[in-house]
């Protein structure tokens, strides 16, 4: 199954909120291997998670 960026970004996001199925994980890995935009998106939402966790301690 070939994912579009729209589908891949959705799976990247869902992967932070639930366990993806095996087929979804494989399809996503294949897509990320060839797609810089979605790889950057994945790194950025992981960064967002780190940043938002620190929101109250850093911003008083």
């Amino acid at each position, binding site marked *: 199954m070939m994912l579009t960026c729209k589908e891949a970004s959705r799976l990247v996001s869902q992967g932070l*909120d639930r366990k993806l199925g095996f087929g979804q994980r494989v399809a996503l890995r294949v897509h990320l291997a060839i797609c810089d935009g979605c790889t950057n998106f994945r790194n950025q939402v992981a960064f*967002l998670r780190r940043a938002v966790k620190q929101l109250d301690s850093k911003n008083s």
Partner: protein
Amino acid sequence: MSEFRARVEGERAYLLRYAALQLRDTAAAEDAVQETLLAALAGEAGFAGRSNLRTWLTGILKHKIVDAIRRMSRESPLPAEEELDALFDATGHWIEAPRAWPDPDASLTQKQFFAVLEDCLAKLPAKTSQAFMMREHMGFETTDICKELAVTPTHCWVLLHRARLALRLCLEMNWFGNK
């Protein structure tokens, strides 16, 4: 006024900002903070021995915020589901693909970064921002967020995904793009 009471009152402004950021409703935020301060004063013994008053108060406030979100969800219907189509072309490719952010974690030491992040959060629709903060800041499981917001799991994931797409775009425009 007792010393404890004065110290608790001193945290009111901070707690209000914290609650307003997550609830996006000034009146609801004020109510949540008021309930928190009352609970704190009634429960002074619970604080005894803890080192950080703000952390303790914020812990109480988080429960009040969840209560408020639960009440608001019951009262307000879901906004119509917008599409994220604007970010992708007809074949599902990014119209403008995310570019790499050089050393993003260096921003985590900068106060100004968190002010920008707060502004970006404030631009999200209320329910989107509530779902995102419950997940990423408070660390709720998605199933619990769906329950509190009274939405289906699929809708919950859409809210979270939409929040992430919008926030990364906002940070790129207002922070990382300018560096």
